[in-house]
C-alpha cells in the first residue's frame, strides 16, 4: 500500500515554489505538490516548515451558480448541514472535537464554491483529516436537524439584510444579471429556504460532493508526500460521478443603465455600481486586478483621492472584483450623504472615463501593482491564507492562477490597464443599486 502510494506520488507534478524570493532568514522554499487520485479527487499540499500550524481545506466546486429558482440557497444550506452529524458522529461532535484540540473550523459558500476549513497545531493533522473527510463523505443530513438548521439559515439571511452595505451588493447582483445564475443570492430567498426539502439538499450532496468535484488543500508543518498519502487513505473509498450539470447561460451585455433604488431606515446613502468583467481564466483578469487597486484600494486609490479628499462627495469609496469562474461584476461602492448619491455616480463615471480615455501614469501603475502584490504576499503568508489562495485557484481556474499570479501582475503595463478599462467601463452599460433614507425623512 505504502509503496504504491509513493510510486503514485513520484509521478505527480512538483511545481516550482510560488514565491521565489528567498527570505533573508534562510527559510526552505515552500514545496508545492498537486496530485489527482484515481477516483478524481485532487490533492494540493504545500510544506511550510516555519510554522507549527496546519491548515486543512476542502474545496467543493458547487455554489449558488449551480442552483435554479427552486433550489436557490441549497449549496449554502448544505454547507450548514455538514456540521450536523455523520454515521459516526452526532450533531455538534465535530465542533467539539476540533475545538477540544485547540483548533478552529468553519466554512463558506459563494456563487462558485463551498469550502470547509480547519486550522490546528500540526500534530493534530490526522484527527482533523479524519473529521473533515467524514463530514464530506458521510453526512447524514438528518431530517430533524434540517428543520432546526433551516431557522439558523433564515437568521443569517436576516443578518445580511440588516447590513445596508451587503444588501446593496445583493440588490446590485439582482439588477445586473438577468440570465446567468449569478443573479441569485448565495443565501437564497427566505421563502425558498422555508420550504426547501431534505430531498433537495440530499440531491445536491449526492451530485456535487463527488471526488472529481473536490480539492483537498493542506498547508503547514507537514511533509508533502506523507500528507498526500494520508489524504489518499482517508478518501480511498470515496466514489461517485458528478451529476448532470446544465450549461450555464451566458449573460448578455447589460442593455443600458439598470437601476434599483430602495428607501429604508438608514441615515446615509449606500451605492454600488457594477460592470461586466473578465472571469479568472480570461487573460485580462490580471490587468483588471491592477485596475481595481488603481481605482479603489489603498489610501492612494484614484477614487478616494478624488471623491473623498478633493470633491468630498463621498465619505467611503472602494472597488472590488472577485476572482470568479464565470464573468463577475467589477463593483465600485460608495457611502455618501443622503442627497449626494446622484452626483457621486456622475463623479465616479467621470473618473472611469478619465482612465479609459486618458490612461494612467507610470507612478500610478507602480503603486497599484506593488500594493496588489504586497497585499497578496501578506494575505498568503499564513497557512490559512495560502490554503485559501491555492484552493480558490484550483476550484475556479487552475493551480497556475495561484502559482503564477504575482509574475503575471508584474507584467501588466499601462496600456493593458487602459485597454481593460475600455473593455469594462462602458458608460452606457452598467447596473447601479442605491439604498438611501426615505425622501423627506430625517435631515
Amino acid at each position, binding site marked *: 500500500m505504502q509503496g504504491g502510494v509513493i510510486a503514485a506520488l513520484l509521478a505527480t507534478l512538483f511545481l516550482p515554489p510560488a514565491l521565489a524570493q528567498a527570505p*533573508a532568514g534562510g527559510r526552505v522554499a515552500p514545496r508545492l505538490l498537486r496530485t489527482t487520485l484515481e477516483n478524481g479527487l485532487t490533492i494540493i499540499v504545500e510544506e511550510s516548515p516555519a510554522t507549527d500550524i496546519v491548515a486543512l481545506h476542502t474545496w467543493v466546486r458547487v455554489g449558488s451558480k449551480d442552483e435554479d429558482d427552486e433550489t436557490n440557497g441549497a449549496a449554502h444550506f448544505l454547507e450548514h448541514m455538514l456540521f450536523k452529524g455523520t454515521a459516526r458522529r452526532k450533531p455538534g461532535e465535530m465542533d467539539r472535537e476540533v475545538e477540544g*484540540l*485547540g483548533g478552529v473550523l468553519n466554512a463558506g459558500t459563494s456563487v462558485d464554491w463551498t469550502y470547509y476549513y480547519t486550522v490546528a497545531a500540526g500534530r493534530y493533522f490526522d484527527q482533523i483529516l479524519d473529521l473533515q473527510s467524514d463530514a464530506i463523505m458521510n453526512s447524514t443530513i438528518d431530517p430533524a436537524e434540517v428543520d*432546526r438548521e433551516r431557522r439558523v439559515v433564515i437568521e443569517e439571511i436576516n443578518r445580511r439584510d440588516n447590513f445596508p452595505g451587503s444588501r446593496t451588493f445583493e440588490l446590485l447582483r439582482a439588477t445586473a444579471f438577468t440570465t446567468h445564475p449569478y443573479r441569485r443570492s448565495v443565501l437564497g430567498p427566505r421563502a425558498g429556504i422555508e420550504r426547501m426539502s431534505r430531498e433537495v439538499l440530499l440531491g445536491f450532496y449526492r451530485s456535487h460532493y463527488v471526488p472529481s468535484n473536490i480539492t483537498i488543500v493542506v498547508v503547514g508543518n507537514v511533509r508533502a508526500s506523507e500528507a498526500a498519502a494520508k489524504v489518499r487513505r482517508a478518501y480511498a473509498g470515496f466514489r461517485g460521478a458528478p451529476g448532470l450539470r446544465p450549461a450555464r447561460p451566458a449573460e448578455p451585455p447589460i442593455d443600458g443603465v439598470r437601476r434599483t433604488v430602495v428607501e429604508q431606515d438608514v441615515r446615509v446613502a449606500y451605492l454600488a455600481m457594477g460592470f461586466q468583467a473578465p472571469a479568472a481564466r480570461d487573460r485580462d483578469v490580471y490587468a483588471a486586478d491592477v485596475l481595481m487597486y488603481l481605482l479603489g484600494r489603498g489610501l492612494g486609490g484614484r477614487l478616494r483621492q478624488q471623491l473623498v479628499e478633493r470633491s468630498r462627495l463621498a*465619505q467611503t469609496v472602494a472597488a472590488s472584483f472577485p476572482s470568479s469562474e464565470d464573468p463577475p461584476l467589477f463593483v465600485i461602492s460608495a457611502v455618501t450623504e443622503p442627497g449626494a448619491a446622484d452626483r457621486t455616480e456622475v463623479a465616479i463615471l467621470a473618473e472611469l472615463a478619465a482612465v479609459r480615455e486618458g490612461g494612467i501614469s507610470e507612478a500610478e501603475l507602480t503603486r497599484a501593482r506593488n500594493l496588489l502584490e504586497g497585499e497578496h504576499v501578506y494575505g498568503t503568508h499564513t497557512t490559512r491564507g495560502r490554503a485559501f489562495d491555492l484552493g480558490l485557484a484550483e476550484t475556479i481556474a487552475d493551480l497556475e492562477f495561484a502559482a503564477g499570479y504575482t509574475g503575471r501582475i508584474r507584467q501588466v503595463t499601462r496600456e493593458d490597464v487602459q485597454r481593460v478599462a475600455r473593455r469594462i467601463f462602458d458608460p452606457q452599460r452598467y447596473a447601479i443599486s442605491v439604498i438611501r433614507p426615505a425622501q423627506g425623512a430625517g435631515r
Partner: protein
Amino acid sequence: MRLVVVFALLAVLAVAVPTPRVSSGQQPGMTRHVLDNGLVVIIKENPSSDLVVTEALVRAGPRLEDPATSGTTFFLRGMLVRGTERRTGAEIAQTIESLGGQLGGGTRADFTTLYTITPSRHVDVAMEVLADLLTNARVDPQDVETQRRVSLSRINQNADQPLSRALDLFNGALYPYHPYAQSVFGTAESVNALTRAQLVEFYHRHFTAPNMVLVVAGNITQAAALEKVKRVFAGLRADPVPRRIRWLRLVERALAPTPGASLEVRESRSIAAAWITLGYLGVQAGHRDFSALRVLNAILGEGLSSRLFVEIRDKRGLAYQVSSSLALRAGPGFIRLSAGTDPPNLSTVVAGMLREVERLRTESPPADEVEKAKRGIIGRYALAREDLESQAFYLGWYEILGVGYDYDARFPQEIAQVSPADVQRVARQYLVNHVLAIVAPPTAR
C-alpha cells in the same frame, strides 16, 4: 465637565486597585528597550516571511475622551494620513504603497494604532513615514473639514447597523460615569464642535514618546531594528504621560460601579431581526480574576461548541450569530453575550442566555468541559498570532495595557491553572445585575 468633578472627588477617595503584574523577564527572540525620549520599543525577530511590521500604539481613545470631545482620537488618526509638514496625504500613500507596503491603523477604547507592513528591504522608508506621521502631522484646515464629514458618516453608518447600535446602547448603560460609554466615532455634536486647535492640542499631548509603545516584528535582526528605531524615532516629543492617564488608573474602578439592579434599554427600528446584547461588569487587564473569567467566557460563548452556541443555535435554531466576549481593557472591562434572532423569539433567546448564566452560577462546570475550554483558548491563542501584524499588535497591546509584553507568553500558563471552582467563583462574583440592550422592530416580543 461632570467627569472632571467626579475625578477630583475620586482622586481623594481612591482606594488601592490591584496593580497589574509586570514581569521584566525577556522572551526568546524578543527584546524590550526604552529610548532616551521614553519610547518603549519591543522587537520580535521572525524570519519566516520576508516582511516587517512596524506598529505604534498610543494611549489615546474613548477612555481618555469626555462627552464633549468624544471621537477626537478617531478623527485625529484620520488626519495623520492626510499630511505632515513634509509630505502631502497623496505623497504618504504613494510612498508606502509604491513599495508594496500597507499603512493601516485602528482606534480602540484604550489606545489607537498606526502600522506599516512592508517587504523587509523597505523598512527604513516605512519607519521614516511612520515617525513623520507621529511627530509632524499638519492638520490642514481643509482636511479637517474632509475628516469631519468622514467621521459623521461613520457615526451614521454605525447607527445603520443594528448590532453596532446595540453595542453602543450596552456601553452607555453599563458605564453611566466612565468614558467607556462613548463611541470611538464620537457623536454628531462632539464631532461638529471639534476645532483644529483642539486636535493639535490633543495630538501634542498624547502623541509623545512616553505615551507610546513601538513594536517591530519580522524579518529583521534585533540589532538592525534597534539601530533604525533609535535613529528614526529620536525626534518624538518627550513630554510626560498626560496627567489624566495617570489619574484615571486610580479612580476608574470607582467610575464604573456594578449596577445596583439589572436594567434594560431598548430601541425600536424597522429591521428584520432583533439584536440582543446582555452583559456584566468585569475586570481590568492584569486582575487576578481575568484568567478565570476568560475560561468562563470560553465555556459560555466562544466557538461552535460553547454552551450558548449549542443551546441556542444547534439545539433550537434560534440564532445564526450567538457568542460571548470578554473585554481586555486598561479599565474595568465586561463580559457580553450577543445574538440576533427572529423578532418573535426575542424573549426566548434572552431567557436562554440568562439560563446559561444561571447554570454557571449554580453548578460547577464539569472538569472535562473546563479542560476543553482551556485547550481551546490556548490553541486559538496560537492560531490568532499566525500573521505578523497580530504578532506585533498583541505584544504592543499588553505592554500598553500595563501587563507587560511578556504577558503574551505567560497567558497560556495562567489559563492552564484555572480550576472548575475558580470558574464558579467568578461566575457568582461577576455575573450579577445584568445590562440588557436590544435593538428590534417594535413588534418583537
